[in-house]
């Protein structure tokens, strides 16, 4: 009952989206469809998707209060512990890192620029040593100087996973190198700087020693988990209650579940900052449980932006899409997620590539898109590298973006698989995600046409890591099909693809490579890409990996995720950063100065 209603609503949204304007919907690829700017005239309403690849309302006007709202509370304000994309984006207000994503729209925002560092790092010839020089005179909010040791200390903190937990752990894997370092809290070194792979010869120099080359390493240093933390102000697990600012704003109040308020940090030097605008005087983030109320505030322009950037609710979407003047205040960018169905070769008959091919041909991708909320919620997509990552392209060997099943091909493949009469299998889906359940049902319906009989198994969504993340369970439960979604922690091909398709990432619990792809050629390409200093060369390798994975028919990409977000017309400097798939918060200003 509920599912049908949701489906109907989704279908309505989809129809509206298709009829009111062409929003680039069904065509996959790198373009964000920014050219659909309906009005074309600058001013009050910048136009639909106007912020996708250019700056809306450029301005240098300072003052006022930026009002962001959210229904999802922050996971942590401690840069070492946060994992939400919106927090990483939000951290840019109060956290600076050696390198940071440039404040530019579209793909330009994927570039790392020196932030605390005075320049790009010196990389040794063997690509295993990175040396950074810090800008002089950088200060924390308390006026103390930011030194290389504060950065090293900040990195060391995340090694204490029993204290600073929840954030990304890439740097541990990269820098521990057998030392088994347990973090500064139990460090016997008098200065608590016992991590051997990071050296701080002086206060403005920091040297990282890697075990093997990794061209993604700079991206790891752009994460909050590599942000400087002053040892004397570190509160361990409670640091998130009052993170010490190195950026243009500092916290005035932190009230979990209610809201957060940032005010100007007078010890931030604009001249030292490569991109931060710091226009509003105050940045407020209000937490509410009431999504309808938040949407109402957004549409009434009493709130500026949905902080979580997950899109308007169904009801508000319908309203917005029906009215071109409202629609002109929304953006519908890719958020870096691909929603897909994994086929597990460990579960027969998916050990046979032809059976996997059959599913790909028989899938009704339009129905799957509708199940997820229509074209505003995601574009049909042919491969497994999202459009905002270098190396992505329009590759679509199975014709998924055509939007309709190819039953003849599917039947041919079934025959080749030796299952001309079809087969039975089970699709695993998180029971608490209605869109995913809808997708599973849509796929079930489509596959019925070729006699593939699918049972939908809804499991407790919080048990991902021990259900679909446990290869044994996948096998024993016969999960031939698994509905999931994935977004990268850092916008490179390996950041996105490696956990999904690198055989060395398979774990017995918390696995993400559900298909258990372990192809030496793919693994080797990842290693080559890690050594490539030229991003273009790495991108070429990721493209090859992506194509090979798709050709292997392990994944059925359903959509490249999009979210229809409201933008208050009073906001200035609005653009989508491809690094986060969200509006770049730090660039925002308010035109009315209120």
């Amino acid at each position, binding site marked *: 009952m509920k599912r049908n209603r949701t489906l109907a609503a989704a279908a309505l949204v989809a129809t509206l989206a298709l009829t009111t304007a062409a929003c680039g919907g069904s065509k996959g690829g790198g373009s964000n469809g920014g050219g659909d700017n309906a009005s074309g005239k600058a001013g009050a309403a910048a136009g639909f998707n106007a912020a996708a690849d250019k700056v809306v309302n450029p301005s240098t006007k300072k003052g006022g209060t930026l009002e962001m709202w959210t229904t999802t509370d922050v996971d*942590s304000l401690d840069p070492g512990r946060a*994992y939400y994309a919106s927090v990483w984006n939000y951290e840019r207000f109060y956290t600076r890192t050696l390198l940071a994503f440039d404040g530019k729209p579209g793909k330009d925002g994927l570039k790392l620029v020196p932030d605390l560092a005075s320049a790009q790092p010196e990389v040794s010839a063997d690509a295993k040593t990175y040396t950074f020089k810090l800008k002089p005179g950088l200060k924390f909010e308390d006026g103390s100087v930011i030194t290389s040791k504060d950065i090293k200390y900040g990195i060391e*903190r995340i*090694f*204490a*996973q*029993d*204290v*600073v*937990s*929840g*954030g*990304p*752990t890439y740097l*541990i*894997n990269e820098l*521990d190198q057998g030392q088994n370092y347990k*973090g*500064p*809290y139990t460090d016997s070194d008098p200065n608590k700087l016992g991590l051997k792979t990071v050296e701080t010869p002086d206060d403005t120099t920091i040297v990282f020693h890697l075990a093997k080359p990794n061209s993604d390493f700079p991206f790891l240093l752009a994460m909050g988990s590599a942000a400087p933390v002053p040892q004397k102000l*570190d*509160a*361990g*697990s*409670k640091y*998130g209650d009052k993170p010490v600012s190195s950026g243009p704003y500092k916290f005035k109040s932190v009230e*979990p*579940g209610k809201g957060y308020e940032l005010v100007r940090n007078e010890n931030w030097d604009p001249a030292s900052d490569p991109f931060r605008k710091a226009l509003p005087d105050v940045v407020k983030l209000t937490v*509410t*449980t*009431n999504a309808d*109320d938040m949407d109402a505030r957004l549409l009434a322009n009493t709130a500026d932006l949905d902080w979580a950037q997950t899109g308007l609710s169904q009801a508000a979407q319908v309203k917005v899409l029906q009215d071109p003047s409202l629609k002109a205040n929304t953006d519908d960018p890719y958020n870096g997620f691909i929603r897909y169905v994994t086929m597990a070769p460990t579960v027969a008959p998916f050990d046979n590539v032809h059976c996997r091919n059959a599913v790909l041909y028989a899938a009704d991708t339009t129905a799957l898109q509708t199940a997820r909320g229509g074209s505003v919620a995601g574009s049909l997509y042919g491969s497994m590298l999202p459009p905002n990552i270098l190396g992505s392209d329009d590759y679509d060997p199975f014709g998924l973006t055509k939007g309709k099943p190819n039953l003849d091909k599917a039947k041919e493949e079934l025959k080749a698989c030796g299952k001309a009469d079809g087969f039975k299998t089970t699709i695993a889906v998180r029971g*608490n995600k209605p869109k995913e359940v809808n997708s599973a049902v849509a796929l079930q319906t489509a596959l019925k046409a070729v006699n593939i009989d699918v049972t939908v198994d809804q499991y*407790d969504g*919080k*048990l991902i*890591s*021990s*259900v679909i*993340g*446990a290869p044994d*369970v996948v096998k024993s439960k016969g999960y031939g099909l698994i509905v999931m979604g994935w977004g990268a*922690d850092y916008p490179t091909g390996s950041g996105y693809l490696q*956990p999904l398709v690198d055989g060395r990432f398979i*774990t017995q*619990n*918390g*696995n*993400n490579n559900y298909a258990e792809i372990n192809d030496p050629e793919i693994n080797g390409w990842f290693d080559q890409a890690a050594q490539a200093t030229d991003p273009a060369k790495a991108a070429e390798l990721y493209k090859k990996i992506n194509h090979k994975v798709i050709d292997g028919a392990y994944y059925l990409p359903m959509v490249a995720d999009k979210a229809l977000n409201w933008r208050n017309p009073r906001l200035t400097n609005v653009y989508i950063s491809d690094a986060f798939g969200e509006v770049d918060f730090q660039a925002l200003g308010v035109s009315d100065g209120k």
Partner: protein
Amino acid sequence: MLVYLFRRLVNVVFMLLVVAAVTFGIFFMVPKLTGTDPAMLYVGKIADKVAVEGIRHKMGLDKSIIEQFWLFLKGVFVGRDYNAGTDMTHCAAPCLGYSFKTEREVWPLLLNRVGVDFSLAAGACVLWLVFGTATGVVSALRRGTALDRLTMSVALAGVSLPIYFTGLVALAVFGHQLGWFPINYTDLTDDPLAWFEGLVLPWVTLAFLYAATYARLSRATLLDVLGEDYIRTARAKGLKEPVVIGKHAMRSTLTPILTIFGMDLGGLLGGAVLTEKTFNLRGLGYEAVTSIQSSDLPVIMGVTLFAAFFIVMANLVVDLLYAVVDPRVRLT
């Protein structure tokens, strides 16, 4: 009396211990049966082994269940120390630990949450007690009239309609359509007027549900009482009818109402999940749901104990009040 009170309080503590032990047991048995690890919920996206170990250690999940339970009890009675990395944080008794998810101390968190339920209950209980009982009394005194039938039909509707229906209707009409009331909760300490306005709809809706029960109960009880011999005696003494009803009949009518009032209030303070959800209130009920969803053991324990505490205490208070109201009851 004092001995009785002491014995009952010991009983309360014992009950809470049993509740705590059972909750603890369920929390650890379920993952065992489903083969999951609560720690997996709190690592980042990629379940790195180091991270999982760290979190297990941090949450104390690497200790045996018995030891964890012992530490929990110790925390409740004498407080316990937590390693915050940079220093040891002392969590003073009664310490319910730290939320796995938010890392906030559970005790103050729940005290804050229960404030919402107190606010909710305070207004609603006055409304339902006054209107429910008054309606029932009037209905009983006008038995068989159109008024009686009308009020009892409304009461039947009140009992039958779930809060998420009446609540949503109230929200849609008075909150959204007419815009008479805000639909957000504000703390009393932040802004008393906004607090009041924000709670009007939940109060009325909740009171409607309960008032219906109370109307039916007080009507039935009063009708019973009016048939009692001592009411006839009171009339035979030549007392005025208002005295007969207001004094003699009502005193007896209120006794069973007091009982269910105590239980209802206790239950309500322990969290009103549906009401909270409908009106976006963050009380114990909200915390109960979210903590279970996120396997946040310390919060689950805390919520369960809070709810159990209120219900057990409500029981005790009702029993004590009973002794005050009814001289025949002896506290032994």
